[in-house]
């Protein structure tokens, strides 16, 4: 495609929402004829394994968001066989807990009470968005061909965008943050947070009333902060899947340089707890006090490296490297004039180091492949040179282990990320 046509494409997309930017603008173009095949890793079987997939997203999604990793979750009313499989739930190693859009759930899930009052939860994500809604109880199962291999009974989860809920409290859902109340907000029917933390809040919410996370309804929508014991907080679901409860392994295939329409892999529960989850990783990156490892990249030392499947690009800072040019009309992404290949060297507080090859394509060209949703070379800036967010592109062609806090594994005690 000529640069002139690129220019037209870009201008057409200016000022439009993501729906038009990526679906409308990218859709129907000749670039869609690249016809890259879907890719997948060999399918594993077992009661502790299920498929994960990068694809075009759930029914009802009218915007195009690339690099979202989806899976399905079976949810039941506690103690009953009234169940529903929720598809296209985002797999997020950067957060903790299962959070579903109320609109995606056709069950009657009882709201959890705290000190005799209905309990609500609010969480903020690193992209300055939030989720707000009631804490409910559900029997949640995953794994195996019928999604009944592992079960977490009476798991506390969140329902977001529930009608009838009090307005979200200002200390969490600030006016300027982005809401995650709908499929188009989220790009998914929910978020499956399988990060290193066992609860979404931890000791803060045990000890502090005005913790920002947990709120009790004192009637008429009058919310007050409430302290909640850790055991009563929203739990990382995998932590309940005994004996496969020490973490999760995510395996994704290599995708084409121009992107693939879908990419299918495995999510395996447990680390070294069965024949199918024996770790082969050689690099174990443990987070420091603030949750980071150190990354050397582009000739500089970045002190804030981390892995997050819920980030849909490589997000890193450069000083003024002309190689990583910002896209002209979408400065959230990099548009290098030619594909950049570089190496990031990670080192963590446990003394281990490892190298990661990073490839950065031109985001405008990549999005022009209208059929593609899985990109291993999509990247954007983070505002300063100190951070490196190894988002979903990092996961392609890898087996990435996320170990829970204080969990014992063959690779040592969590929390860590290994690959």
């Amino acid at each position, binding site marked *: 495609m000529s640069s002139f046509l690129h220019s037209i494409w870009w201008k057409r997309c200016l000022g439009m929402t*993501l729906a038009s930017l990526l679906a409308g603008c990218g859709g129907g173009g000749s670039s869609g004829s690249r016809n890259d095949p879907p890719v997948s890793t060999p399918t594993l079987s077992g009661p502790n394994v299920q498929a994960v997939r990068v694809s075009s997203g759930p029914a009802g999604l009218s915007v*195009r968001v690339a690099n979202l990793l989806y899976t399905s979750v079976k949810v039941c009313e506690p103690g009953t066989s009234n169940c529903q499989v929720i598809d296209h739930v985002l797999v997020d190693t950067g957060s903790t807990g299962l959070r579903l859009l109320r609109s995606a759930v056709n069950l009657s899930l009882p709201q959890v009470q705290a000190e005799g009052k209905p309990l609500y939860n609010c969480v903020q994500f690193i992209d300055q968005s939030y989720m707000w809604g009631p804490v409910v109880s559900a029997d949640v199962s995953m794994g195996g061909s019928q999604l009944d291999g592992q079960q977490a009974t009476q798991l506390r989860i969140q329902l977001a965008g529930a009608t009838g809920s009090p307005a979200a409290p200002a200390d969490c859902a600030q006016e300027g943050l982005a809401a995650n109340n709908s499929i188009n907000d989220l790009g998914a029917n929910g978020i499956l947070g399988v990060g290193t933390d066992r609860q979404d809040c931890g000791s803060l919410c045990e000890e502090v009333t005005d913790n920002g996370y947990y709120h009790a309804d004192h009637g008429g929508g009058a919310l007050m902060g409430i302290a909640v014991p850790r055991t009563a907080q929203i739990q990382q679901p995998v932590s309940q899947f005994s004996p496969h409860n020490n973490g999760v392994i995510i395996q994704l295939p290599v995708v084409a340089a121009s992107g693939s329409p879908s990419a299918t892999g495995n999510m395996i529960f447990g680390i070294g707890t069965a024949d199918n989850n024996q770790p082969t990783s050689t690099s174990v990156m*443990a987070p420091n006090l603030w949750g980071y490892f150190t990354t050397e990249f582009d000739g500089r030392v970045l002190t804030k490296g981390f892995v997050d499947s819920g980030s*849909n690009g490589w997000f890193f800072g450069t000083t003024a490297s002309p190689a990583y040019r910002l896209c002209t009309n*979408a400065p959230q992404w990099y548009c290098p004039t030619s594909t950049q290949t570089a190496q990031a060297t990670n080192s963590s507080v446990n003394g281990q180091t490892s190298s990661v090859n990073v490839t950065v394509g031109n985001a405008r060209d990549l999005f022009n492949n209208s059929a593609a949703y899985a990109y291993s070379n999509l990247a954007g800036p983070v505002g300063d040179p100190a951070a490196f967010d190894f988002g979903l592109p990092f996961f392609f062609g890898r087996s990435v282990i996320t170990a829970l806090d*204080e969990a014992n594994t063959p690779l040592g005690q969590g929390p860590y990320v290994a690959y």
Partner: protein
Amino acid sequence: MTSHPFTRWHIAALSLAITLLSSTAAQAALGGAPQAAASATAETAAAARQLRAAPSSQTYTVSTLVAPNGTVVQEFVNTQQRVFAVVWRGPVLPNLSSYFGEHYSAFQQAVQQKRAAGQRGGAVMTQQPDLVMLSRGRMGRFEGHAYIPSLVPAGLDIQTLLP
């Protein structure tokens, strides 16, 4: 190794408190003059533990507030008594609109544009002539900063103040 966010922020807040002295600096929105009334309210509010810094240099003073949830916000005030930088760190984002003041719309716009560009995760930032802003972190471990380049005291390397 513990990873309980509160423990981390608690430690951070305590060590900060130990290093701070009392002074009369006041809380204000970015770019604005200190608001004595707002400060007095904050001083008497039971919910907030307000810590004050002595002038930390001849070119600026620091006002620090630790929220009950452990989030620490520092405001840097120049000799014209205008807040030229805000820095925060903690398990929950502070009330950014109260610290950004009239510059909050730039933050809101950056959040919206990021989403419209099809981005999830990462950080939110703005780099404009009159405002540089970055808000990021891990879930439950947020940090960020905002400053107005034209109000930064001459000779001060702003990078030395940022987390």
